[in-house]
């Protein structure tokens, strides 16, 4: 597991010293998974959890690897390129002239190091050979040594004439280089023991990643320790990989934990990761859909390739080169042979090699990486720059397949493949254009690639491909050419779909005149074409500009039309696009006017395709923000259907269903429907979830239902208020705020609300403490809750004891009108207890409140007037009010006050009237002001 994680994790680029984890979604996911495992482990096995492992645990085992069966990765490799390299590097440091050194010299036979750390040529790597070194000991001839996975041995040496190595083994196999050299050179052996101490002092940083796991660990058992320590004395750190059979670290862990259950969890995670890999090629076929459904299996992969238009996720991930010590598959050398022909053959040989390469399972990662590792990518890309159409086609056909692999995509970009492909888009050869566009569609799955496409003018060229319908007016075109034109446009749309995930590309597509072309293609009836077209539109609809253009180009009409298509994917993308666009009121009306609500409602009845269901419910949610649409949905019995979808659906669907119900709940009639078809119980049940978006919507819906006293009774009976209340502890501010808002109608409509609130142990303290939040929405909602709580005198007394007054006063200096309004209301309510009025004055809440009157928001004015009225019953507060603008001679200062009075808000005016009465009372200072106001009133 450790190795697997080390490889998956994304590290910061570090020259020397330890690398650190980068803050990326992938790493977060990995770390979370580890934490989850570790946390549960502590509880399940408290005793075992007490052991502290200073270093990774390692021990000898009698278990045969075959005993582990399938599902375990067992390694039986003694040496790997890393350990060999470390040994050689270390020996180099202690080599040279002089008596103290261990060797005269040690050198590799080849300067070229493959990406997997090997220096042996690939065909020797297949046999497990890593590299060859020439070693000159003080007391012997130069030795030519082969380092392989099996061990180290002398080979036939360099042949004199050509400098070739005779690879044949000429001696015994030793477990490592040091052992071999000790055997061959007495001086080495002697000097080595002298150096022993120095060696062990070598800092660890010389051996990144793989070194620590190979250390022999200090174990907690005394007997083991003593045995080990004697061993340790005779041992040099160099010969690190001495255990004859070493299992993977992950395996060590499992056996050391020695519990069936934790084994299973670990195995599951491994299977999960594996599963994720398999999914990869599939999910990348349809760029747009990843954003909706997240299967847990795909979790990590999904995070990498998140295609949501909002978050420009860069999916760059660490380069996994073929591991040297993993056995090279047979495809590897077959492909290598083909690449040789690509390099050294004329057009005919090249085409044969390309066609043959296509016969490999190019969807398989082994083949994809093999092509890259033998230098095939460079050649394939070079072929694109030749004049040979056949070679270009053959090369693109391969690139198109292997670019489903995220690493290959990155390599293609690194090798400068994209500009060449962008150029090919200009070719007169249609199938060539198509292949180039399709390959670009695959490669442009990450941000850097999309940028390259744009910078090389690719977006304009791709948009030009959409312009296939030029001849559509001329009837005489043969159908063959027409089909090929359609194909060109389809491939263009496919590439644009991928590219449209970057903001700048959306802009570029728009500027290149893409929207009218997409709108025109949308009128065609080719399903294959419609999917990428709608996909692109859906992606771009995240931008305001596009939503406006989509409205203007009458795209909504066609989106609605295609909702009735037979193709589920097309329906899905249309619904997604409507979901994106329906934030806009006019668009919501357009969807209704073009008859889009009915197909949406009827699509709700097909619940098998979850991706589509999520998109459809999303569209319904956004559309139901308009009341007229809700009326229609009610007509189509969609509300009942939505209630039915509250159970047994994935979260992505639930979020939208509940969101839609929340909108519907704004009307009495619908609230009744929801109650009647038993919607309240499943809604309340959803309050225990953990999905943040879902919780925000659920709390909103439950709150809306609570407006009905009859529904409130059900909520109360189901303990819904307690659940809402505990959501105030949710870490996410949106959830907190939404829960708080929902609590307000609950408290208003519950019978014995005061008693109910008191029954939540620690509940009041929790609410008061939320006033320390720094989120304005949380503060406003909590103020609203407190206003409702404070209606009960006993509870008001309790929250006063919890220090609500100073906390509220602290908030008074705010410019946020929403907060101001609710804060003023709360202050007004809290004044009703004990000496709170005075306390607000003492905590300097009065002066800021006076300034609220300058706000443009009538709600703020009304609430503030009430609060000032309550506060003005204390004489000192009146003085403060005077000093803060009520009594200064300048007329303009009173203007806000005048405004309040003249506004047609009876309640507010009366409050102000009362307030003025009070303010006049304490002294004559206010006389002129009051006189003035009298005239106004």
């Amino acid at each position, binding site marked *: 597991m450790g190795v697997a994680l080390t490889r998956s994790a994304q590290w910061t680029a570090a020259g020397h010293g330890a690398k650190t984890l980068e803050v990326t979604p992938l790493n977060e996911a990995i770390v979370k998974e580890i934490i989850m495992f570790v946390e549960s482990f502590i509880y399940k096995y408290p005793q075992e959890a007490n052991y502290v492992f200073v270093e990774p645990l390692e021990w000898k085992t009698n278990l045969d690897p075959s005993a582990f069966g399938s599902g375990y990765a067992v390694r039986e490799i003694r040496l790997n390129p890393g350990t060999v390299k470390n040994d050689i590097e270390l020996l180099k440091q202690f080599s040279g002239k002089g008596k103290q050194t261990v060797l005269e010299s040690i050198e590799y036979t080849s300067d070229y190091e493959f990406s997997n750390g090997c220096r042996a040529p690939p065909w020797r790597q297949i046999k497990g050979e890593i590299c060859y070194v020439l070693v000159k000991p003080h007391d012997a001839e130069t030795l030519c040594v082969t380092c392989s996975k099996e061990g180290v041995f002398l080979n036939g040496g360099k042949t004199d004439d050509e400098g070739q190595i005779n690879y044949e083994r000429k001696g015994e196999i030793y477990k490592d280089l040091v052992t071999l050299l000790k055997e061959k050179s007495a001086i080495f052996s002697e000097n080595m023991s002298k150096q022993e101490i120095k060696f062990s002092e070598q800092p660890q940083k010389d051996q990144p990643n793989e070194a620590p796991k190979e250390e022999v660990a200090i174990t907690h058992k005394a007997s083991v320790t003593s045995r080990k320590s004697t061993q340790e004395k005779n041992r040099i750190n160099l010969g690190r990989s001495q255990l004859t059979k070493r299992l993977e670290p992950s395996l060590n862990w499992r056996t050391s934990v020695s519990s069936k259950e934790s084994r299973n969890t670990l195995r599951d995670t491994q299977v999960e990761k594996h599963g994720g890999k398999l999914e990869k090629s599939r999910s990348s076929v349809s760029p747009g859909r990843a954003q909706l459904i997240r299967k847990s299996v795909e979790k990590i992969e999904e995070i990498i390739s998140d295609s949501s238009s909002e978050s420009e996720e860069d999916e760059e991930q660490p380069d996994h080169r073929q591991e040297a010590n993993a056995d090279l598959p047979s495809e590897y050398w077959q492909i290598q*042979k*083909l690449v*040789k*022909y690509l390099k*050294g*053959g*004329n*057009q*005919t*040989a090249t*085409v*044969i*090699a*390309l*066609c*043959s390469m*296509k*016969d490999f399972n190019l969807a398989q990662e082994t083949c994809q990486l093999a092509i890259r590792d033998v230098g095939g990518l460079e050649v394939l890309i070079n072929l694109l720059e030749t004049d040979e*159409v*056949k070679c270009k*086609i*053959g090369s693109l056909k391969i690139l198109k397949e292997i670019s489903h692999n995220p690493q290959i995509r990155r390599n293609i970009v690194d090798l400068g493949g994209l500009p060449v492909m962008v150029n090919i888009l200009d070719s*007169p*050869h249609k199938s060539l254009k198509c292949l180039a566009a399709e390959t670009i569609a695959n490669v442009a799955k990450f941000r850097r690639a999309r940028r390259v496409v744009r910078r090389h003018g690719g977006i304009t060229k791709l948009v030009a491909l959409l312009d296939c319908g030029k001849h559509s007016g001329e009837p005489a075109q043969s159908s063959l050419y027409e089909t090929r034109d359609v194909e060109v446009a389809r491939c263009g749309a496919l590439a644009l779909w991928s590219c449209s995930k970057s903001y700048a590309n959306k802009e570029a597509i728009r500027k290149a005149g893409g929207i009218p072309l997409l709108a025109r293609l949308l009128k065609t009836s080719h399903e294959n074409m419609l999917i990428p077209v709608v996909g692109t539109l859906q992606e771009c609809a995240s931008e305001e500009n596009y939503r406006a253009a989509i409205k203007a180009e009458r795209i909504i009409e066609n989106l609605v039309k295609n909702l009735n298509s037979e193709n589920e994917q097309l329906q899905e993308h249309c619904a997604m696009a409507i979901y994106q666009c329906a934030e806009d009121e006019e668009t919501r009306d357009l969807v209704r006017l073009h008859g889009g609500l009915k197909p949406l409602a009827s699509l709700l009845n097909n619940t098998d395709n979850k991706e589509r269901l999520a998109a459809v419910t999303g569209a319904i949610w956004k559309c139901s923000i308009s009341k007229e649409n809700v009326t229609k949905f009610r007509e189509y019995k969609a509300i009942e259907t939505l209630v039915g979808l509250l159970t047994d659906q994935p979260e992505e669907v639930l979020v939208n269903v509940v969101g839609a119900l929340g909108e519907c709940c704004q009307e009495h009639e619908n609230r009744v429907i929801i109650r009647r078809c038993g919607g309240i119980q499943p809604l309340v049940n959803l309050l225990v979830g953990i999905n943040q978006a879902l919780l925000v919507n659920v709390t909103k819906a439950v709150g809306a239902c609570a407006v009905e006293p009859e529904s409130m009774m059900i909520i109360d009976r189901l303990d819904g208020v307690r659940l809402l209340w505990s959501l105030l502890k949710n870490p996410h501010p949106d959830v907190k705020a939404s829960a708080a808002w929902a609590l307000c109608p609950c408290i208003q409509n519950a019978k014995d609300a005061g008693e109910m609130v008191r029954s939540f142990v620690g509940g009041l303290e929790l609410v008061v403490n939320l006033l320390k939040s720094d989120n304005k929405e949380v503060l406003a909602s909590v103020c609203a809750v407190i206003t409702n709580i404070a209606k009960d005198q006993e509870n008001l007394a309790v929250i006063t004891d919890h220090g609500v007054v100073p906390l509220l006063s602290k908030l008074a200096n705010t410019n946020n009108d929403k907060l101001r309004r609710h804060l003023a209301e709360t202050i007004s309510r809290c004044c009703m207890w004990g000496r709170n009025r005075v306390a607000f004055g003492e905590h300097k809440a009065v002066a800021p409140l006076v300034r609220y009157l300058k706000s443009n928001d009538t709600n703020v004015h009304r609430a503030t007037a009430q609060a000032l009225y309550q506060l003005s019953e204390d004489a000192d507060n009146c003085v403060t009010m005077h000093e803060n603008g009520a009594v200064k001679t300048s007329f303009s200062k009173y203007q806000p006050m005048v405004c309040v009075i003249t506004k047609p808000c009876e309640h507010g005016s009366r409050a102000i009237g009362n307030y003025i009465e009070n303010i006049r009372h304490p002294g004559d200072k206010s006389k002129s002001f009051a006189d003035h106001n009298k005239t106004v009133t």
Partner: protein
Amino acid sequence: MDQKVLKRLVESISKSVNSFKKSEIECFIRIFHNVVGRGDVKLANVGLDRNTFRVILHSIFGMTDDVLMNRVFFAFDKDNDNYINVKEWVKGLSVFLRGTFEEKLKFCFEVYYFNGDGYISRERIYDMLKNSLHQQSPEEETDEGIRELVDIALKKMDYDNDGRISFADFEKAVKEDRLLLEVFGPCLPDAKVQWQQRIGLGEIFKDLKRNPC
């Protein structure tokens, strides 16, 4: 040239060649006539010899491989009299320039198995591919490389595993991947010529008219 003769010739050829218009057939006959350069002799009795034809293949259709040019000649020369007569000329060009996929398939197969027993044998493949690797290593190694390449091609196309490629094998392989149509070397006009012929057939032979060989 006698207009009546020409007209009759056009009529007779147009019965077996559908892809050209009569005016186009006439144009090709004129070109043939021009190239042969013996307007006075009855057209039916003269023909292009191999060398003249190879010059045309090279200068107009961009072919370079001698072996293949010879074979294309023989594929044109249906009656095996070592001359391409006017009918063979027009018929051949129609496959060359306007051939359907099936026609081209047959044509290429004919070129490749040339004079054989209806199969493309391993030896023939070797002959056709022997110059396909750039000389960069000693003779022996190149030879080994070509043998390997022949194996690769056979593995790809010999569906019935009899060590040679039948027409059925060839057809199946090419239908699966069109790139294999000219698998053993170019024997059709290259893409550039194909573009030109969209513009107009006369365009292709412009140079030839001006400068008859």
